[in-house]
């Protein structure tokens, strides 16, 4: 008797018991995602590999690599959006986790060079140059792909967990937290710049030859890495979408808006922050590991504070708290960057600054928020 009254207004994604697919995206969202997947896994591979080199449909290796790189950046942006857009934690050190994932896979790629280095030693060239006779202990087992793949997840994950444990237990918040993350990535950069650290100093790792014994610079391998990056991005989007539409996601947004009330509701907010923070760092590590074989180099400049700030700009441009918007922001900013650094190399930084100012002033909810407004729906 009473039932129809109260349940009538509960027919909504967040509260109604919907299937898990419908919980993630509406029909339009799934269609868009399907189209995107078709582009990634069918159109691009066909255009790059099947279309003859002279034809208009042919996609050159340059574009495949650029696309793969941007897909990795987009994955970082989406990972960042979960902690910033939802939990309200602005990290200015996410580039560190990305770089650590890259270094972890880089160690394996260096091992794969084998005796083909300049000095034809079983050690990487930079170690020969330093006159080292054997690998340091922390390079042990890195010749095994699966061990390196585990490091990709474990190193950023453990660092984020330990750092987050202390920071969130100590209730470090807001701008203080941001500054400490910035200092963390800067300190790591200085550490990795030293030759004695054993990661190639300021040159880092480069001249990769093979991955899993297969030559790395072939068109097929590039397309494979591109598709893998695309799959990782789509997987990240779906995983995070699942997280933020869960009750835990609503707790995160509540922490962002009124943390004290969340605590007085009985939630240990530090654990919630630690969870998303660590998950986000792991996803960044994976993105870094996909990025390095595609661009063929990893060095400490990836850890520079400016890089991490740029990640925050991608998310702000795309629209915080939307996930898809963050990916869009990474695509737009990096697309513009590729164009500007080729056509007007001197003006790129001015343009980036201008873009950031304009977006902040005119589209406080980013591109995703502006699109949503155009479609007549209130921005959330």
């Amino acid at each position, binding site marked *: *008797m*009473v039932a129809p*009254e*109260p*349940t009538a*207004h*509960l027919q*909504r994604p*967040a*509260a109604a*018991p919907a299937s898990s697919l419908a919980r993630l995206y509406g029909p339009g969202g799934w269609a868009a995602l399907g189209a995107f997947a078709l582009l990634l896994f069918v159109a691009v591979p066909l255009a790059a590999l099947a279309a003859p080199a002279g034809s208009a449909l042919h996609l050159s290796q340059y574009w495949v690599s650029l696309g793969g790189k941007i897909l990795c950046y987009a994955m970082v942006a989406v990972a960042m959006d979960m902690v910033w857009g939802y939990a309200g934690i602005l990290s200015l050190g996410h580039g560190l986790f990305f770089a650590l994932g890259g270094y972890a896979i880089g160690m394996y790629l260096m091992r794969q060079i084998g005796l083909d280095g300049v000095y034809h030693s079983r050690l990487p060239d930079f170690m020969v140059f330093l006159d080292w006779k054997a690998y340091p202990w922390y390079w042990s087992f890195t010749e095994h792909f699966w061990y390196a793949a585990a490091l990709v997840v474990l190193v950023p994950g453990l660092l984020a967990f330990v750092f987050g444990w202390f920071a969130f237990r100590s209730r470090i918040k807001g701008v203080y937290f941001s500054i400490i993350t910035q200092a963390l990535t800067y300190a790591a950069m200085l550490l990795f710049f030293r030759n004695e650290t054993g990661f190639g100093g300021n040159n880092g790792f480069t001249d990769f030859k093979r991955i899993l014994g297969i030559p790395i610079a072939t068109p097929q391998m590039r397309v494979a890495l591109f598709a893998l990056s695309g799959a990782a991005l789509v997987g990240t989007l779906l995983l995070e979408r699942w*997280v933020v539409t*869960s*009750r*835990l996601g*609503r*707790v995160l*947004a*509540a922490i962002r*808006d*009124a943390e*004290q*009330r*969340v*605590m*007085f*509701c*009985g*939630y*240990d*907010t530090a*654990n*919630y922050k630690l*969870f998303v923070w660590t998950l986000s760092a792991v996803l960044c590590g994976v993105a870094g590991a996909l990025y390095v074989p595609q661009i063929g180099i990893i060095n400490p400049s990836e850890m520079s504070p400016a890089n991490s700030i740029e990640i925050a700009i991608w998310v702000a441009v795309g629209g915080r708290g939307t996930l898809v918007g963050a990916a869009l922001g990474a695509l737009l900013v990096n697309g513009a960057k590729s164009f500007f650094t080729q056509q007007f190399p001197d003006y790129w930084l001015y343009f980036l600054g201008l873009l950031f100012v304009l977006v902040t002033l005119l589209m406080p909810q980013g591109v995703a928020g502006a699109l949503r407004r155009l479609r007549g729906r209130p921005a*959330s």
Partner: protein
Amino acid sequence: MTTIAFTSALDGGPSGDAAFGHVSSGGLDTSHGAILYLENVSVSFDGFQALKDLSLSIDVGELRCVIGPNGAGKTTMMDVITGKTRPDAGSAFFGQTIDLTRLTEAEIAQAGIGRKFQKPTIFEQHSVFENLELAMKADKRVRRTLFARLSSEERDRIAAMLERVRLAESADRPAGLLSHGQKQWLEIAMLLMQEPKLLLLDEPVAGMSDEETERTADLFLSLAGKHSLVVVEHDMAFVASIARKVTVLHEGSVLAEGPHEQVQNDPRVIEVYLGR
């Protein structure tokens, strides 16, 4: 049906123990009749003595009003009870055994103390329904929350609470769009969803219309007995309408305590309120 059963449960009807089976459990030992003991609690901030040897005890099922001029230490007292502020000296116990000075805010909330802030504190971006969902008594650890799904029984409980605080029409609206009085009610509803044994209410009727104030008084009176309530309020008419026992704080300690009329006629209380 469910609405009726739920309302009577909160009001202490016969089905109350079935719906709130855990009210009497959870390690809370109230065998001596008191649910909260504060003994010689002192707190100072930068030399300012906010609480000075404050001692207070609240009985199970009691509705206590705490009054006092600004700066008397009312909010600091609530901070001590809810773990937000650690006392410099003294002890604070929930029941006989739970030492509140050793627990975090979240642990205290889970032990069964709910708190309403002076300024309504709700999740403005969330819908009214979601506010209640998040507040609802549940396993609030990370993994459980990640996989949590609302059961139809929980959905009914939320719906019943929305009816009770007259927010059913606004269930899907962002809570930030509610009127001030409605926000106060939403926060009280959130507290009740936690099923606390002790409710601390800091100026619950501030900014409410007369009609809303009246309904709030009725609500509190219906809760007493089932829950223990501590109400801090400036509105003396409201205090008069609900108070059985009143505690007057002044400069961080108890100045007077007793039935409302007795306290009202206490010359020291009159002096404190009128002397400034």
